[in-house]
């Protein structure tokens, strides 16, 4: 029975815990869902029945010639798919196609109408294959295809159904981007195609015209040939008219899309829509123009029209265009890139993805302080992180109870198709307590008997979460009912969008199918999946989840647009920034850790090859920082005065590492740079190797300097500058193993850098450091933004401000020295806040007059 193996009984959490909430517990939106199978199971064991080794993306097409067929997979590696039957799965995913796009002759119209439909987004599970998929359907236009459309789908296939469910919103938005690339490329290509065809037709018409005249001249007006020619000419005329109309439709796309957008935006903020849409459209067309116009221009000029037949034959023998031909090549490659990004960013365990998303969401709220210690990715991530917060706070994801979570059916839009192909097999396949019956019972209570036309697919649970025309329309009217201020677009406009969609049920609410009404339809489906029926089903059963998400502004759609613009504006190979970095990191953590620990045990220099992360002009990556964790750990164990050195860095006193050997100095710089606040994107505040005397301005710029000790005259001037500015710097002499710096005695840094630490791995230590520094940052934030300690009570009140500040820091539990750290971080935060992230040319440089001591090993 459909989905029965996937459905786990509704296991309710115990209710008694509700009254007590732990004040220290994390807010709801930041908690990671617990692993469902609490007992004995190893959470990382592979789902046994999955026939593929890792997640992949499948692009497939419903070909009018051969039926559903897989086109390509990402990654394009046969090993990934293993024995997984792509053909079968393509069939599965294409069989749930919504087929909502209607092209043809609508009643009352003489010309074919193009229908600009939004994509549909569906979750599909196949327990037999152990595969779960997010399926993104879209249609591309092809002049030679039946009805001018070619249905395609992009599917993200994973063995972990929870991943699909939890990441639905993210997947949806990412795939929408990919789809948008495809579709905009396709529109351009289709328009070109039409123009060519029009030229052909016009040429043909002129030829025919001549011939007709000739026939008339020769044989008279009523000869059979003449009539034939005249008919042919009429056909061509009609064809020209139709094509012109098509061309008009496709070129007027942006303005039509605007209508759709208009409806959506209107729901949330009526004022801004026009602006948004204008920019959107203009951007869109601009970009498209730039990329394609020149090409088409040249093609237009070089194209020589051909004589064609007026009626295009149904051509099963003809080669259909490939996907790349259907879209513009550059758009196609952009799509592939986007798909690669998706593949990379959703690679790995759900928990990991979830954690990193939480991480990002949290960091996006920390823009004031994140520059201090956080890795570079945090700035780059930018806009897309908003996506997550929306979905995590109020999940609009259709979640089935296979995830083992309590499910409230009225809030989630699930469309459960129950199929009865092999009623007998069901019990064998799934666990006996399969909850199919539960669901069907519950849902059938609300079921409407009007859903006769629905069909269902094999053993699947489908959730329609996407925007389909019907739901759009329904929402639109919903919105009208709720908010009368929404201005009404002309009804004809709307109906033209979704002509063939059957009317929604009057209540417009949850319309699950009755299990009973599906009985006996199974054979029908698989023998001949009629698009009309499928469409009807879709129109009927798209559940009205959308009002909510649309009212909030469908994040998928909106983010999609804005990102599309930026992505298009950028050069294609710039898009990989964050996700690549992150996932590679993820993938290599284990290897790295192992190498870390082994190299530590052997205490050799082999693994610690002095590959400096500070190559000019390249951004520091998290990976390099984690590597640095290992060096830092070694430094702490080797040097008893590590705490003092770290204290210097944290309190903003420039640390100069002086040594003869470049490798040693660089190694120490690598060990210590993770402690430098406000390191900068490229590590600008660190100078790993300097062989000339440094200037005063260098002290302002660099907080960690590796300096060459040389016997040359230059060396003596270096020493002179060291001596001269000795009050502003601390000097770590790695030849004599001494450190000259102000004294520090306290617990804070000793927690941070305990030479007896049990932490063995560099990356673990790095995380430990990050944790401590984050804590410190939080205190600095508190200190910076507490009103009462900074604002003077009256004008002549400077003294009390100072004492209030000092007392506040003491109350936070900091010693005088540690207060300097907080103070320094606070000053950085203030400067950053006032000036914005752009670094003003004139940073001032703070210091204090304290005596330095010489520490020896």
């Amino acid at each position, binding site marked *: 029975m459909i989905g029965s193996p996937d459905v786990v009984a509704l296991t309710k959490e115990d209710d008694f815990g509700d009254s007590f909430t732990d004040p220290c517990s994390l807010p709801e939106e930041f908690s990671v869902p617990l692993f469902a199978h609490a007992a004995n199971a190893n959470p990382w064991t592979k789902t046994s029945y999955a026939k593929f080794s890792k997640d992949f993306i499948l692009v497939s097409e419903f070909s009018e010639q051969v039926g559903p067929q897989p086109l390509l997979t990402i990654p394009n590696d046969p090993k990934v798919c293993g024995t997984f039957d792509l053909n079968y799965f393509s069939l599965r995913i294409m069989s749930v196609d919504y087929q909502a796009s209607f092209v043809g002759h609508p009643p009352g119209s003489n010309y074919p109408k193009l229908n600009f439909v939004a994509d549909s987004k569906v979750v599909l599970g196949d327990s037999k294959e152990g595969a779960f998929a997010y399926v993104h359907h879209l249609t591309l236009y092809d002049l030679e295809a039946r009805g001018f459309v070619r249905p395609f789908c992009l599917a993200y296939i994973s063995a972990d159904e929870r991943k699909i469910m939890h990441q639905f919103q993210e997947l949806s938005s990412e795939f929408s981007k990919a789809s948008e690339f495809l579709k905009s490329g396709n529109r351009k290509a289709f328009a070109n195609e039409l123009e060519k065809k029009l030229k052909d037709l016009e040429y043909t018409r002129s030829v025919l015209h001549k011939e007709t005249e000739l026939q008339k001249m020769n044989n008279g007006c009523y000869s059979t040939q003449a009539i034939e020619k005249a008919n042919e000419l009429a056909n061509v005329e009609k064809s020209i008219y139709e094509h012109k109309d098509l061309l008009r439709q496709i070129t007027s796309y942006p303005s039509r899309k605007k209508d759709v957008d208009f409806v959506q935006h209107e729901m949330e903020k009526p004022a801004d829509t026009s602006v948004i849409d204008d920019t959107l459209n203009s951007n869109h067309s601009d970009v498209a123009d730039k990329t394609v116009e020149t090409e088409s221009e040249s093609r237009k000029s070089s194209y020589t029209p051909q004589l064609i037949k007026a009626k295009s034959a149904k051509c099963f023998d003809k080669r259909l265009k490939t996907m790349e031909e259907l879209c513009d090549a550059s758009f196609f490659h952009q799509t592939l890139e986007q798909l690669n990004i998706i593949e990379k960013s959703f690679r790995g365990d759900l928990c990991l993805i979830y954690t990193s998303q939480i991480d990002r969401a949290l960091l996006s709220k920390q823009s004031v302080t994140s520059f201090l210690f956080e890795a570079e990715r945090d700035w780059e991530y930018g806009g897309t992180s908003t996506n997550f917060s929306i979905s995590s706070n109020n999940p609009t994801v259709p979640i089935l109870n296979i995830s083992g979570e309590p499910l409230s059916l009225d809030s989630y839009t699930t469309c459960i198709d129950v199929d009865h192909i092999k009623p007998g097999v069901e019990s064998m396949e799934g666990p006996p307590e399969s909850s199919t019956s539960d669901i069907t019972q519950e849902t059938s209570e609300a079921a409407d008997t009007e859903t006769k036309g629905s069909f269902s697919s094999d053993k699947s649970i489908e959730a329609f979460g996407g925007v389909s025309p019907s739901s759009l329309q329904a929402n639109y009217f919903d919105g009208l009912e709720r908010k009368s201020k929404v201005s009404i677009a002309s009804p004809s406009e709307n109906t033209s969008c979704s002509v063939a969609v059957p009317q929604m049920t009057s209540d417009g609410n949850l319309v699950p199918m009755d299990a009973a009404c599906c009985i006996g339809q199974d054979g029908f489906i698989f023998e001949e999946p009629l698009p009309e029926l499928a469409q009807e089903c879709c129109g009927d059963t798209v559940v009205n989840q959308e009002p909510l998400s649309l009212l909030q502004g469908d994040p998928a759609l909106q983010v999609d647009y804005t990102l599309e613009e930026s992505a298009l504006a950028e050069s294609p190979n710039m898009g990989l920034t964050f996700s690549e970095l992150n996932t590679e990191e993820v993938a290599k953590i284990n290897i790295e850790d192992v190498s870390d620990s082994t190299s530590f045990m052997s205490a050799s220099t082999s693994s610690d090859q002095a590959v400096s992360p500070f190559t000019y002009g390249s951004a520091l990556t998290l990976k390099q920082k984690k590597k640095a964790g290992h060096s830092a750990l070694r430094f702490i164990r080797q040097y008893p005065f590590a705490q003092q050195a770290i204290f210097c860095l944290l309190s903003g006193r420039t640390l100069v590492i002086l040594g003869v050997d470049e490798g040693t100095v660089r190694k120490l710089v690598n060990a210590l740079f993770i402690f430098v606040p406000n390191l900068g994107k490229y590590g600008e505040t660190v100078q790993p190797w300097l062989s000339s005397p440094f200037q*005063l301005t260098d002290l302002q710029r660099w907080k960690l300097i590796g300096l060459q000790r040389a016997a040359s005259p230059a060396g003596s001037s270096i020493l002179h*500058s060291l001596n001269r500015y000795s009050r502003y710097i601390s000097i770590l002499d790695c030849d004599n193993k001494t450190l000259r710096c102000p004294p520090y005695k306290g617990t804070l840094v000793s927690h941070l850098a305990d030479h007896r630490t049990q932490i063995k791995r560099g990356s673990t230590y790095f995380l430990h450091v990050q944790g401590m520094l984050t804590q410190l940052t939080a205190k600095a934030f508190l200190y910076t933004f507490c009103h009462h300690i*900074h604002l003077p009570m009256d004008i002549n009140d400077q003294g009390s401000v100072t004492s209030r500040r000092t007392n506040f820091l003491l109350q936070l539990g900091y010693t005088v020295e540690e207060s300097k750290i907080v103070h320094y971080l606070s000053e950085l935060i203030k400067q950053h806040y*006032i000036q914005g992230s752009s670094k003003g040319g004139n940073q*001032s*440089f*703070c210091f204090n*007059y304290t005596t*330095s001591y010489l520490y020896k090993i």
Partner: protein
Amino acid sequence: MLRWILGGREAQGTVQKSAVLFIGEEQPKNCFTEMQVLKGHFDIVRFLVQIDDLRFASAGDDGLVLIWNVETGDCLFELRGHTQQITAMTSYSFIRGRNAHAALITASSDRTLSLWDPDSGNRVQNISDLQSSVKCLLVLDRLDVWLSGGNELCVWNRDFELQCKTVHHSDAGISAMVELPKNFIAAAMDKEIVEPVWIRYIAVMAMRHLADHRDTIHSLISINDGLFASGSHIGELIIWDSVDWTIQAYEHILWEEPAGDRQSEVKLKQIERSIQHMIISLSRYIVAAVGSGLYVFNVLMKSVAAYRKIAHDSSVLHTMRLMSCSEDGSVRMWELQDLPLPAEPASSGFFGMFGTFGRSSKQTGPPAKKIPEVPGLRSLELMGDLIGHSRAVQMFLSFKEKGLVTSSSDHLLIIWKDGELQSQLRSLAVFQKLEENQEL
């Protein structure tokens, strides 16, 4: 406590040390804990002039005049026009229409005089056909004229029209000018003060040459309405009466030499006695930079109040209140202490000894002491120093609580600020911005 450990019990009444002072890194009284380095010049920066509460101009040997904002450290304008080094600069405020305008007059070796508008950065006036380069400028607000002194003395009105000028004086030219009561001015020319120049009827004439100095006069200041002072190359400090131009006090600064090596060092010492600069502090003290030492003269008592023979490693170039800057690249802040406590004087020198490394100039042993005979002598104690410039600090300019600007031969300007105060100001700015962004 350190001095107890080290047993700093020394001869009483010590005023000075023979060796270079060294204060160490612990400077609790030094409030300048924040610095901002200003880059922009390409050569020695010799002049700093305050324009208003917020702005100042700097000029030097590169012929550039830069206008800065002291709070932000931003360079507001680059005034280009002079082709050679700037020799004198002064601010000039005049009233045009109803508003008071600030302007800037600069003189350069290329024999031009320019008037600049610091609000727009434009050169408003320019005079280029001078016979000699101008070495000093003096604005007489009362008469709304200004004077330029070089080989000759010229009087200009605010429209840059020459009102009158003196005849050619000498090759040495006028090096300093001060305004005196009754529309007189005093101008220093080599060894003599071309005393009063009378300018009431737009005519200039030299009234009297005061030739009491035996060597070149380096500095000339006005003390109050009744007195002005001049200092010469060989350490003569003369205080004059402004009205009748008589000598009120004469002080020939002769640093006491250690008895043994008097002969050998006599030449050297004479060079070091030059009075480079003088300033009035607390309206009754003249602080004079004498060689590499500092000399405080009480005008009322007409006697020396305190002095420190070697205040810097090399010549002191400029003084202000009780600060001095020197060719050794440091700025030092001093404090007059009434009665030196028995164990006090030795203390400062020993801070650096402890726990520091590689301190070559560490001072050991009690320096040679001499108890001066002058009654009421106080000691000049080092309170703190500012180290930043790598070459001679030419001049400084104080903006009170907003900071202290120093200019140097290393082409840099540094604004020194009170870190605590700046931190509070930044906090206020943060809350103001929060309020503006409505993020509170």
